[in-house]
């Protein structure tokens, strides 16, 4: 047993390929047998992966999902930002400039609209839960923009660490919801063309949520959504701690 474990840990990236391969295989089996293929295999694979991450997280108390188990540490490399970004860029191969240009305005609009909308809704939930100081309200609002904007804003405007932790949690909830709900609602909201994919990326903004959501709907749409989503966190970091925090201060 020790020898098996040693091999698996030493070659953790290869172990990760096997782990993900088996997960995807299981997902497609479930998709075929129980949903007659109606629920896409990649969507089920992502949900399975989230479930694994949850159960491992409960038993290890870690923050990196299954990657906290030694033999699965390679999943952290395979699913880390380096290879994720590399693969996202690769999806742009074959994407069309003309599609980007024709829906560019809608994409840019959705970007600013999305950041402000997420912030306002998050701030309103914070107020509904009894927060009264502008710093906490803005930090929680920032967390619903993305879980990066939350702590960036919180530390910039001097929020307490428990409020920053809450803002990260709100951002994580958003990201995981986008991953799981997108394939379910895609048809209803008309998410089937480059333009709506760009709007989707601009409104949701969470890189991991958008990446996983579109992967399960139609991989061809990934570059368009990723294109706007890549600017989202930056726009959030720019306008949330400055402009939007200032606006909240006017009311509280």
């Amino acid at each position: 047993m020790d020898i098996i474990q040693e091999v698996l840990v030493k070659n953790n990236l290869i172990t990760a390929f096997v782990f993900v391969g088996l997960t995807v295989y299981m997902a497609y089996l479930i998709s075929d047998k129980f949903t007659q293929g109606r629920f896409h295999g990649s969507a089920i694979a992502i949900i399975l992966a989230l479930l694994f991450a949850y159960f491992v997280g409960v038993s290890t108390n870690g923050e990196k999902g299954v990657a906290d188990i030694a033999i699965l540490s390679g999943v952290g490399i395979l699913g880390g930002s380096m290879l994720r970004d590399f693969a996202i860029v690769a999806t742009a191969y074959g994407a069309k400039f003309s599609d980007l240009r024709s829906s560019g305005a809608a994409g840019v609009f959705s970007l600013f609209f999305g950041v402000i909308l997420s912030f306002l809704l998050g701030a309103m939930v914070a107020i509904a839960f009894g927060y009264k100081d502008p710093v906490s309200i803005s930090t929680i609002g920032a967390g619903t923009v993305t879980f990066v904007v939350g702590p960036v804003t919180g530390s910039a405007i001097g929020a307490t660490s428990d409020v920053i932790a809450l803002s990260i949690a709100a951002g994580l909830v958003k990201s995981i919801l986008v991953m799981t709900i997108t394939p379910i609602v895609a048809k209803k909201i008309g998410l089937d063309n480059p333009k709506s994919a760009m709007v989707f990326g601009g409104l949701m903004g969470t890189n991991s949520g958008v990446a996983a959501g579109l992967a399960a709907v139609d991989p061809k749409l990934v570059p368009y959504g990723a294109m706007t989503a890549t600017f989202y966190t930056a726009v959030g970091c720019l306008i949330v701690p400055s402009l939007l925090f200032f606006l909240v201060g006017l009311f509280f």
Partner: protein
Amino acid sequence: MVIYGIALLGICTLAGLFFGELLGSLFGINANVGGIGIAMFLLMYFSSSLNTRFKIGDVSEKGITFWSMIYIPIVVAMAAKQNVVGALDGGLMALMAGIVVVSVSFMFIPIISNFKKR
């Protein structure tokens, strides 16, 4: 050579992320501003000009399309390393904030996508 495709992809990614970091420090924020977007633009530019002038070649092309196809398994791995417990432990407020934001944002997608058609 398959490595040419991978190398081209690598050059685009690195250059994009570099300019993204540069933009970030220009704005004075500790975040990469659109690095992936810039990298994607570069790759699209090269792939269109290569097709018309140099011809990157079918084999080299596979170096790029492989990474494009391995994208979904990478996303599955990314999902498996999320802090799901942390998201659920944030309590009712974090859950509510996430649910409200995601559902309202989804409702706006068809509205904004159809702006110009009207």
